[in-house]
Each structure stands twice: as C-alpha cells, then as structure tokens.
C-alpha cells in the first residue's frame, strides 16, 4: 500500500491535521484510559479462550495462565459432539427466532396502536400495561397460572408469557409517536387503510427502532433460562443456558470427559461458555449502527 504524502492532499484535508488538531497529551491520556477499559472487557474473553485450548498437563501446573505453549482443540471437539449441548442449542434457536418474531409482532402492534389518535379504552390498556412494570403477581400465582394453562413441560412456557415487554413497547410507542402525523394523513388521502399505513409507511421508517427492540428480544431469548428452569422438568427442553449451568456446576456428568489425561475439566467448561457466547458476539456488530440510532431516536418525542 503506497503512502500518501500530506503535501499532496487537498487543502481541505490538510487543514484537518493542523497543529491544533494533533494528537495531544490529553488524547494520549484518554487513549490509555480507554485502552485499559478495553483490556478489562476483552481479558475475560481472552482468558476463557486460552483456558479452553490449554491441555491438561499445562493447565494442571499453572492455575493462572496468560499463554499456552501448546494448543489443543480437544475440549471443543468434545463440546461439539455433545448431544445435550446441541439439544440446548436447538431449543434456544427456536426461542431466538420464533420467540423474537412473536414478541416483536405483539410489541410493535401494541406500540403502534397506543401511539395513534385516541380510541376508547386506550388509557385503560396503557395503564394495565404500565402496571406490570411496577407490580407483579408474585412467583406462585404466576406458576399456578402457567400450570392451569397446561404450559408446564412445554416449550411454549418460554415463549408465550413474554409476548409484550413493557419497556420495549414504550420505546416503540414513543418512536411511532415521533413520526409526523402528516405522513398518516397524506396516506389516508391516497386511500390507504390503517394496516397499509402501518405496514407500508410506519414500519419501513422504524427500522432503527425495530432493530434495537429486536436485538433486546433476541439477546433476552438467547440468554433465557429462568422459565425453563422453573416450569420444565424434561432434559430435552433445557435451553442452552441451562445446559451451560449444568456444565459449570457438574461438568463430569453433563459432558463426559473422553480423555481426562488430555482435556482438563476447566477447558470443557470454558469451551462450553465460548460456544454459548460466540453467536451473540457475532450478531452484535451487524446491528450496532441501528442499535445506537434507535435508542437515541426513540428517546425523543418529536
């Protein structure tokens, strides 16, 4: 790659590197502080990975390691061939895709309806939804409700009760309310009905907020374990996070170690943790630009 001399740059770009804009002492200070923060965030992931690829002989004699002279992916091979991990992955994928779509549908249409002109009972519905942010029925009534709906020991218990998240619904509602009313009025003059206005005008304009809320739901579903823990007793319905919990507490029985002289128990745990965090880590960067924009835009009602 050829270097471009600064004198050859157009004047406007040269001005940007004038002495007053140079990398100063304060910038160095900020850089160091940010670097330290970045390292603090990155280090646990790095440590996870290093332990997961360290063979037993090396790990056994160094309980804290920063680098391994020998790399072994045996722990990953074991994790990738473990039935319970894939079963949990399958259940979590159903929650991730099915659950997120389901939650998005109800949250978005509710947010839209509550952002529109007055309709009978709007305030009542709004209050009923708001109440759930401040008061809960308690665990046991909730459990009894789930049981009486015959949802225990089914995958539905991890999807259906979470149809509307109040916080996300408020984000959507505020965003829809921030869009100009004139858009709706002009669409009506052109003969569009409410569903067409919603689907063809408001939804395309709400992509940043949809991505943000979608990401919130997706992360929540990916990390979901509580409802499964409480209401499901079948091993086949365990989510990935539940399987991970088992691996961390009782790795020997959850993932049998095929070669204890080679693979250490901690490597198995770390490999399983890595397996569960990688999909979300890969997912985040692609939605990040929507994510920031969505949060900022949704916070202001125009």
């Amino acid at each position, binding site marked *: 790659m050829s270097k471009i001399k600064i004198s050859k740059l157009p004047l406007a770009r040269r001005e940007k590197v004038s002495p007053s804009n140079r990398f100063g002492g304060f910038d160095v200070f900020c850089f160091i502080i940010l670097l330290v923060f970045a390292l603090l965030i990155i280090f646990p992931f790095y440590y996870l990975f290093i332990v997961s690829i360290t063979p037993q002989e090396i790990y056994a004699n160094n309980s804290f390691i920063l680098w391994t002279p020998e790399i072994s992916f045996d722990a990953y091979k074991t994790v990738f061939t473990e039935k319970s991990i894939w079963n949990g992955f399958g259940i979590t994928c159903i929650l991730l895709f099915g659950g997120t779509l389901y939650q998005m549908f109800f949250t978005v249409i509710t947010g839209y309806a509550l952002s529109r002109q007055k309709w009978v009972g709007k305030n009542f519905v709004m209050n009923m939804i708001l109440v759930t942010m401040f008061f809960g029925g308690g665990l046991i009534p909730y*459990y009894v409700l789930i049981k009486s709906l015959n949802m225990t020991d089914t995958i539905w218990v991890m999807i259906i009760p979470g149809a509307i998240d109040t916080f996300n619904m408020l984000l959507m509602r505020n965003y829809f309310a921030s869009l100009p009313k004139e858009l709706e009025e002009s669409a009506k003059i052109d003969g569009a009905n409410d569903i067409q206005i919603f689907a063809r005008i408001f939804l395309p304009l709400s992509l940043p907020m949809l991505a943000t809320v979608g990401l919130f739901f997706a992360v929540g579903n990916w990390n979901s374990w509580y409802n499964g*823990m409480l209401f499901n007793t079948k091993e086949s319905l365990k989510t990935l996070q539940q399987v991970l919990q088992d691996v961390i507490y009782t790795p020997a029985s959850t993932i049998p170690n095929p070669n204890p002289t080679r693979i250490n128990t901690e490597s198995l745990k770390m490999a399983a943790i890595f397996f569960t965090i990688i999909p979300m880590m890969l997912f985040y960067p692609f939605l990040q630009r929507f994510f920031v924009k969505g949060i900022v835009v949704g916070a202001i009602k125009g």
Partner: protein
Amino acid sequence: MRRKYLFLLTPVVAISSMTLTGCGGRDPKPDVYDKDGNLLISLRNLYFSDYTETANDVYLRELQEQFKVKLSFQSYQWSNWETQVTGAINADNLTDVFHANIDSYNFASYYKFWAEEEMIKPLPNDLTKWPNIKKMLENTSNVEKLYINGKLYGLPIAKNTTDYDTSFSPFTYIYRRDWAKKWGVYQENDIYTWEQFEALLEKFKTELAPTSRYALGDVEWGYPSIVNFYKQVPHCYAYDEATQDYVNNYLTDEYILGLEKSKSFKSNGYYYPGQNSAVDGRLNIEYYSNQIGILYENLSYSNYEALKKQLKISNASLDNFNIEDATAIMKIKAPADSIHADKYVLEGTDNWFSMTFFDFLISDAKQAKILDIIDWLLSEEGTLFSIYGIEGYDYTVDPITKEIELIPEAWPEDPQTHEKAAKTNGAKMLRYMGSLGYDTLGYDPLTNKESVAYLESWEAEMKEALEHDELDILKENKDVMWLTSNLKARYSGIMRTNALGTVMNYIYGTNRIVSIDDYKNDFKYPWAEVLAEINSLI
C-alpha cells in the same frame, strides 16, 4: 379525577386477579395405567440428571416389568434445586415422588409446613410390609424429630445402610504427603499435633512461596476451617454452662479465639490469597493443580476419588509419582489453648441427607407400590440388581462359595486406565430414593477399592479415637437444632449466612469490620430476639 381512580383501580384489579388464580380445590389424582396395565409413576430426584438414556435401559425395563409400573423421570439442577422444589410444591405441580433437601435449619419452614398444609403424604403407620425401609428408619438418626402428630412424612435418604453409627462427617484436611516427606516435616501415620501442623504450614509456605503457591486452602463453604479446632458447636447456637442459656456461638470466647487464629493464619500468608472470593470448586482445582499443599474438604468417596484422580493426571509426567503416597488425610490435634486441646475435632452429622417425599394427592395404592420398589431395591436381591445387574447376563454366583464373578463381556474396561465403563442402570438411580449408595461402595465394580479401603480405615481410626476420648464431635444440642419456633424458623437460615459474612469480613478487614468490636456489633437483629425465644422455650 376519573383517570386517577382508574390508575388506582387497575393495579388492585390486576393483583387480585393474579392472586385469586391460585385459589381453587385440590382434587386427588386418580391412578393412571398404560395400555399394558402398568401403573404410571412420575419421579423427580436430583440424581436423575445423570440418567437420561432411559429408552435403552434393560435394567429399568426389567424392573418395570417386575412391578407392573411405567416410570417417568425428571431431574433437578444442583444450582436451582431449592427454587425448583419450592416453586413446584407451592404451585401444586408435584411429581408423585420428589426429592428435597431437609435439615434442621429448614425443617420448620419446609417439612413441617408442607406436612401441616397437606402438601406431602405421610408414610403408612404400619411399615411391616416393607422390612428394609423399616430397618433403615429404625437406624436413622434424629428420625423421631421428623414425626408430626405421630406420622412420618417422607423417607430420610440414608448415607450409609451398613454402618449407621457414624456420627461425624468427613469434613477434614487432605494434604500433600509427598511434599511433607520431601521437606522433612512429615509425621508418622499423618498424625500431627498443633505445633507440628503449624511447623508444616510454615515449611510449606517457605517452599511454595517462590513459585506463587500457598500452603492452605478451604473449600469455599468450609472457610474458616481453623475455627473448628476452637468452637463448641458447628453453627449458631452454643450453650453457656454459666448462665444455662443458649448464646450466639459466633460471639463465644472459644469462637473468637479461633477467629483470631484464622486471622493470624491469613496474615502469615498460609492461606490461598483468593480464599474470600473463590468461586465454587476453585480450591479443589488449586489443590489438584499442585498450587496448594493442604485442602479442607468434604472427603466423601466421590470427592476424595475425584481429587486423587485429577492430582494423578496433573502429575502424569513425573517419574515415580505414586498417588497413594502423594496425598493423604491429615489428622490434626487441636491446640493447647482450645477446649478440644490435643484431640481431633470433626463436625457431627446425621446419617442421612435429604428426603424422598410423596405428593399428598397420590393414592394409597400408588404410594404402596412406590414403597414396594424402594424396599426391594434396598434388599439384598435389589442391591445386587442395582450394582451388578442381571445374574447370568452381568455376573455369575458360585453355587458353593456364593462369590460373585463379573462376566467380562458385560463390563468392558478402558484400555488406558483399566477402569470399567459406567453402565446405564436405572435401578441404581432409583435406589437413591432410599440410600445414597455408600453402603455398596465396597463391592461396586465401578468404585476404586483402594480409595474405599483408605476412607474406611480413616473412619475406623476416628471411631477408635472417639472411644478413647481422643475425638471431639461438634454438634448442636438436638433440642435446639430441631426446635420449631416462630422467629427461629423465620430467621435461622439467614442468620447463619450473615454470620459467615461477618466472619469473613473480620478476617479480611472488609466492609468496615476491622476491630473485634466492629465484629461483635455486626450481630444485631434478630439474634437477641431469636435467642430469647429459644431460651424461653427450652
């Protein structure tokens, strides 16, 4: 104004509707049979999480055919066991048989409450039909405390059905005997006086410090183990002979002496530095990774065997590393300034752990059928079936000597370790409803006989020490342990947890608990109130 009323009314309606959802009648569960006439029984147990391959289990099939039942298994997670049990029981969503952790600290709030509220079904008064269960119950320690209005509401799960007498737990020290020998501080038969123990700690510290390793570590729940050599009782309620009252154990002179000793051990650098923040399992890893020289742990067979196995793997590259010589249980005698001077000290225990319960709504016939199964599994025939399998298929019995011989094809061995491959045997899992199976360790083909023999010899030695008044067992008075009273039932659990937090803060000088006065002042409400209640009732 209308809006304000609406806003107030809404939560009232919402909460009422959610609360009323829980109200309703409880109908008894009818017995259900499959098309082949087998009675359907659902079971939930902590240990069933290790048992998922039920479909191809020949032993389970055999057992089900024998008893004309069809069993379905559900498990708890170790990490959420209590939440899962209490959630299911309070919402009336129980399996026919279930497993819960009961001890003197939750006896009133769980067991007694469940019994009185008719959530769990009592055992029949006459147990003569189930002789093995009856025998087990007759030998269960403190079983009389579990009777409410003359009825027993579950089966305490036996830790050991061959030796009921063991009254102490194996919470003790395992150490690197090879290091002690190498560095010249080893004492014959692993018996150490307090001075010898401190000399060993000092030597370990000197030798290990250059490589950032440490002399001592306690399993996370066991810290500070050093206090055990001083205190009167394991947990909250000690007895003061002078006032003849129960007092706060953590404020007794004996406990504080032990606390100061623990603090000095910490400041001397004997302890693993991350002891106060270690996550579950960390100290075990430190021990088998050659990072600490002594570990305080629950040395049950499974824990001891796991530590040995891992330590062996960690040192596989060393020539002449003999695991049987490298690690051993340390037998330490209490210091001269302790009430237990020159004696061994161990924590007292009941000979059972947790209980098997029956849903209140199941029929008498179904409960009897479940008891039939448990009783048979505890019998000699059932035990052989659980441990060895089917005669002629897994093992043979010599007609004259009655010795059992395994059929090699049925017990494949790992070519490297020569250990027998584990089998899927539902009967063994089901036996955990009545016994944890320690009674069968001696002849279970899947156990390490050397480890079993070693632990048994340690136990025998400690029993002998007890007979010769060389062992003190830390045990709360059973009247106070099992006392059910309002405040005690409500606060005992949290008091114990908070007290251990205060102890940890004092030793590490954290959370502004620096001086002994700070420590003493941290024991506030409800200690005085609970103790006053106990003293008024006993």
